[in-house]
């Protein structure tokens, strides 16, 4: 049987993105310059992935030659993308870390509005988990410590309804 063609490498994640329940992009990072470098290709890919996955909550899919692990929460969809030969459990560990970290940051309110209200926290979490396609951190507790993000007790914009937290 043919040898797996992957060269051993730390570059394991091709892309990560978060979509809302209309399939619109809320956040996305593409790490491989050869994998859908243009915005048009990326949006197209996200649309295809969304169409194939948002009805069936099946955790793992294989589309356009890529392995995709995903998770949904209320009105959000989280995706981590790797090559077809990638270790699926490794991709799952990234997804789980992402989800758990965000869950802590958003005080379990992993839904769209709360996510958008705390977007800088979300950006920072993603930045701490994957760097240029390399898994930087897999433990949510470590991620939270590094991000050290405090959900605002009051909203930034006055007269603006957002999720309030007392801490």
């Amino acid at each position: 049987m043919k040898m797996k063609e992957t060269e051993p490498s730390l570059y394991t994640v091709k892309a990560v993105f978060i979509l809302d329940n209309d399939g619109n992009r809320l956040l996305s990072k593409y790490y491989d310059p050869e994998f859908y470098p243009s915005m048009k290709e990326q949006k197209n890919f996200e649309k295809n992935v969304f169409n194939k996955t948002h009805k069936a909550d099946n955790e793992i899919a294989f589309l356009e030659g890529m392995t995709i692990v995903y998770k949904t929460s209320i009105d959000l969809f989280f995706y981590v993308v790797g090559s077809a030969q990638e270790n699926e459990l490794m991709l799952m560990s990234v997804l789980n870390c992402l989800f758990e970290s965000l869950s802590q940051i958003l005080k379990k309110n992993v839904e769209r509005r709360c996510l958008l209200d705390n977007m800088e926290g979300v950006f920072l979490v993603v930045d701490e988990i994957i760097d240029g396609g390399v898994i930087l951190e897999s433990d949510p507790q470590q991620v939270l410590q590094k991000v050290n993000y405090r959900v605002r007790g009051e909203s930034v914009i006055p007269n603006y309804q957002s999720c309030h937290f007392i801490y």
Partner: protein
Amino acid sequence: MIKKFDKKDEESGSGSNPFQHLEKSAVLQEARIFNETPINPRRCLHILTKIIYLLNQGEHFGTTEATEAFFAMTRLFQSNDQTLRRMCYLTIKEMANISEDVIIVTSSLTKDMTGKEDVYRGPAIRALCRITDTTMLQAIERYMKQAIVDKVPSVSSSALVSSLHMVKMSYDVVKRWVNEAQEAASSDNIMVQYHALGLLYHLRKNDRLAVTKMLNKFTKSGLKSPFAYCMLIRIASKLLDETEAGHDSPLFDFIESCLRNKNEMVVYEAASAIVHMPNCTARELAPAVSVLQLFCSSPKAALRYAAVRTLNKVAMKHPSAVTACNLDLENLITDSNRSIATLAITTLLKTGSESSVDRLMKQISSFVSEISDEFKVVVVQAISALCQKYPRKHSVMMNFLSNMLRDDGGFDYKRAIVDCIISIIEENPESKETGLAHLCEFIEDCEHTVLATKILHLLGKEGPRTPQPSKYIRFIFNRVVLESEAVRAAAVSALAKFGAQNDDLCFAFLDDEVRDRATFYMNVLQQKQKALNAAYIFNGLSVSIPGLEKSLHQYTLDPSEKPFDMKSVPLATTPITEQKTEIAPVATSKLPEKLAPSRQDIYQEQLAAVPEFQGLGPLFKSSEPVQLTEAETEYVVRCIKHTFARHMVFQFDCTNTLNDQLLQKLTASPTVSPVPATL
């Protein structure tokens, strides 16, 4: 500005996106407050978030405005707000490619990376390495080396990963840090181990000896990191493959020992590595397969998927090794994840017995429409392999394939099916007729030129040799008429093959009449005489058709040496429009318009029906009807004079104008008045 943002948002309601109505120019305008002192961290933070959000959505920033925003952002380093500082690092990375002179932040970043705030150091390193070029790298070299061996794990990890990113740009510089990386590899932290190993491998991968040494060291020293283990397994596999070492090497033992690791990720990596090794014996595969078998019943879908996908690969070369898992695979057939179900079924098709084929095929057909194109191709490939293994099952397979061919699907999918059908036809003469029939049906409505031409080529090759080649000619002929250029060309070539094989087949598919005309016209055209063309093609018959028929009939009754003379047939006269014809038109649209039977023809028919007139010969001419009575009388009579060669027949039509009277036994008594003889 902020108030405007508020208002829009209040209007759109609570379900909206606070970033939805962002305008780049407005946000960049807002960014001017970065220059104000004192800095308001929260407001600035929110503006930075909006900038990054816009960039992420694909908003284009021109160089000037990006540079302006970047420079304004550098002012924010004056603030000590941690989140704000972190967002600055992020902004630097996001704008590194679109802003000019980004290196102005170098000194700030260098300061942060060597400063006291641990929470800044890692991210600052990563941002710095993002904007560094080769020259600058040498300037910060010593900081990087120090960072790699730093005791704070996040600092070390950041430095290692950043170094890895810079290998492409400055391999020679980064190579000098190999000792530091080696030291970092002995860290307790599982991520640092992983990153150090990764960097070391990338630096040494062209030196096989160095890699071997490194591997020996790490496999003995017992790393903790599951990620590092996965990396080691991959390196070991690659080495085994490159050196073609036997499976009794310590490298193989190491991989095999990983099957007993506590972490599922490592176990799976090891199983997958073993399964992909060339020349694995059944004995060597067995422990990997049993591990995968266990995973089949995991509650985690990703694990079940990984396991069944790998077992599917094993089954391709070693189906017997997978037979032990058949029961577990059967359980997966009904998995809610259709990809898993598909893989399970296709694996079973490879390992199961002939008797299970029908059942499994039925199962698959129930959900094949739900799975993605990629998996449909997997199914087709499994069927292809199955057909080779169980040739007797070809009719079940062919049925299934033809159904799939009718469904929606992309080019790759359809091509896989067509290829599969073709290979069945080629292997299995019994299936040829069915297969060709399915393919004929497919090309009736096929949008893929490549496939249509391929099938036409096949039909041309195989069709003439079948017992009834004419069956296929119809399909091919339609392509000649209806399709695009490439397809028409292929169709014509295919037809030629039929013609070459069987002389009389060329027109066999056409209806008799069509064929006769085609032959006739072809012959006329081949004479290449304009006069002939004019006579036979352009002008057509100028005689009346029923007249011709009558004359021919006469001719056959009265055999003569002379050839039939067209001139003896009366010319066609203009038809009466109000009289209905009794002769039903037979022609299709292809035939030239039949001359409507003229009045004369009708009379001829009617006269011929009377026994006394049959000996008179052909009718020469009939006159117009002459009214003999006035219109208001009880009955009207009109007379028609029919002229034959030697006789005259007078036809009296008597029509009753009264409704309540019936006329019977009419007789006509003409009187002949003496007429001066004229000629």
